[in-house]
């Protein structure tokens, strides 16, 4: 019926009411009401928590004459009160906006219904004239079109008014929701206190960098050729990025770690004022001895993050701090025994487990060098994703996980809810269709090889596949993959699967956009799909 109104308006030279009516029909006040309802329990929990936290603070004050414990608990209670105030306002304003929007939608629908009803009683002559049919009696045609003009004019006016009320509902949100409910929590401890003092407290990236660079400089003239080569590799990687005007910090340097593989962490960007921090952990076959291309990938991620949020400072740390399986080929020193052990290490998550503890320690140090409000994302690729997952089993100050091309999450992590400080909604998984490492073939191969060579019976050597829907992570939509090779050519198919696994293929296109969005907290820009 509205089509008749729209056509009549067109032919009479009046504004078409359809776009305004459609805009109102598209509004979903019920979704806003649902969101407000979700916030009800949040508001209630904050209110209850602030009450019990004050009780705990009072108890601590009575039982411990030192002021610090009661003050620390009091800060949490005050934070809960502040957050409660903001959340209550968000809920109330959302509720009011939903009601206002629902009223505007209802008004628009009523106006359309009235106009449709009146259009039903229009004499046949009017539409004929409006449609340009020759009039049998000219004067009566003009006078018969007047009721149509009146109805359409009123409809347009009522729809415009309803549209203004709908926009007012949005404007109310923009006017009132200025506070971040987390703002009052800035002073809270972000890391559970350790029994021993954190050695990184009070240490700046500048100081760590200077000490490590001095070690590198000394190693450049070392009598040990391997040590010299590693120092040269690190030095070249640092120089490459510094020559582009980037801030580069050598945050960890230990040439003797892991039997000579070495241990290196390099930060791009200013950690001391970072709004966002990403720690990138690559997988097997990488080595500090060949860190320049990896540092370029870290730079690529930082550029994307900066492009996503130009107002924020993002620091990306390349972390080569664990005993990386199959690194020996690049380390350039390995004897036969070490090389075999290095290959066997690919058959299980043992190195990743140990590496997870080291990564957790280093993340504590890196975040201690940064503002407490920095958004922290751990990005792991392949075996590096297993390391990342294992690190996140510990209560470390991390906001997001991004697991790329992951063969599994390692022991003790069966679902995305198993990370103590990262909510499942902030666990992201990127898995290319056809990436051979994320499929069951790698598990089966590692199981068989592990059983044959090492006598280990473990049907799931890398743990749970995080790309499975049952894991409960956010599965990133990385876009369509290139066409699969012919199924009758297994070699080409295997090559294809391997080519879809490389870290560079994850840090390009949709994967890079998603990574930049996650690192900067623009989660809505990270498109997701249903897990497999």
């Amino acid at each position: 019926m509205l089509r008749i109104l729209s056509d009549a308006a067109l032919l009479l030279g009046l504004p078409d009411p359809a776009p305004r009516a459609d805009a109102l029909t598209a509004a979903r006040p019920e979704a806003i009401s649902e969101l407000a309802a979700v916030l009800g329990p949040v508001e209630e929990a904050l209110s209850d928590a602030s009450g019990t936290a004050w009780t705990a603070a009072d108890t601590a004050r009575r039982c411990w004459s030192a002021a610090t414990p009661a003050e620390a608990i009091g800060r949490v209670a005050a934070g809960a009160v502040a957050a409660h105030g903001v959340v209550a306002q968000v809920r109330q304003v959302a509720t009011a906006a939903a009601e206002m929007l629902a009223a505007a939608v209802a008004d628009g629908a009523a106006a359309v219904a009235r106009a449709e009803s009146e259009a039903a009683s229009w004499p046949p002559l009017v539409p004929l004239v409006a449609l340009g049919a020759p009039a049998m009696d000219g004067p009566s045609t003009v006078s018969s079109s007047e009721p149509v003009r009146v109805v359409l004019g009123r409809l347009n006016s009522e729809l415009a008014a309803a549209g203004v009320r709908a926009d007012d509902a949005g404007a109310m949100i923009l006017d009132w929701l200025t506070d971040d409910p987390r703002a009052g929590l800035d002073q809270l401890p972000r890391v559970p206190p350790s029994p021993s003092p954190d050695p990184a407290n009070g240490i700046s990236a500048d100081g760590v960098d200077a000490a490590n660079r001095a070690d590198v400089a000394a190693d450049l003239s070392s009598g040990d050729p391997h040590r010299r080569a590693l120092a040269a590799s690190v030095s070249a990687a640092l120089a490459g990025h510094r020559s582009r005007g980037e801030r580069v910090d050598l945050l960890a340097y230990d040439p003797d770690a892991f039997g000579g593989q070495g241990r290196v962490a390099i930060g791009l960007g200013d950690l001391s004022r970072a709004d966002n921090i990403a720690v990138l952990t690559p997988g097997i076959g990488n080595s500090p001895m060949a860190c320049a291309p990896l540092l370029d990938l870290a730079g690529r991620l930082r550029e994307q993050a900066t492009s996503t949020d130009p107002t924020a400072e993002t620091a990306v740390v390349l972390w080569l701090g664990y005993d990386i399986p199959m690194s020996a080929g690049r380390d350039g020193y390995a004897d036969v025994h070490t090389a075999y052990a290095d290959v066997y290490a690919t058959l299980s998550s043992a190195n990743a487990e140990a590496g997870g503890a080291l990564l957790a320690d280093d993340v504590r140090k890196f975040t201690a060098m940064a503002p407490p409000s920095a958004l922290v994302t751990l990005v792991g690729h392949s075996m590096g994703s297993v390391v990342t997952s294992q690190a996140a089993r510990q209560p470390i100050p991390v906001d997001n996980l991004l697991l790329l091309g992951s063969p599994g999450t390692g022991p003790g992590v069966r679902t995305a809810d198993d990370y103590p400080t990262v909510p499942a909604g902030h666990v992201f998984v990127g898995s290319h269709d056809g990436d051979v490492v994320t499929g069951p073939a790698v598990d089966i191969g590692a199981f068989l090889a592990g059983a044959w060579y090492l006598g280990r019976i473990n049907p799931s050597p890398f743990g749970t596949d995080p790309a499975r829907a049952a894991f409960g992570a956010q599965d990133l939509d990385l876009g369509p993959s290139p066409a699969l090779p012919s199924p009758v050519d297994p070699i080409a198919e295997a090559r294809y699967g391997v080519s879809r696994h490389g870290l560079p293929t994850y840090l390009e296109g949709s994967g890079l956009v998603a990574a930049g969005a996650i690192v900067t907290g623009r989660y809505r820009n990270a498109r997701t799909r249903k897990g497999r």
Partner: protein
Amino acid sequence: MDLEVDTDGLREAAGVLQATETTLRMPGCAVVGPTEGCFGPSATGREAADLLTRRAQQSVEALGLLAVSVAALTDALTAAATLFDRLDQGAVGPR
């Protein structure tokens, strides 16, 4: 001035904090649904929907942040009570 500590009281405070953490984690499954386009297709509407979603997500995140902090304090109080008890048993340190 001597430090006065009642370790039973500290454990009581830790228990209250543990209950606080439980309270904060109860709505942990709160999921903020998509509000894209809720206010219609106008620029104001889109901006309002974005802001509302962000504030709602931040509200849920605030719960998690508080829960982590409360858990840290619970552990610290419990560890302190244990430490004071050990010191007390050794007849050394604060009573």
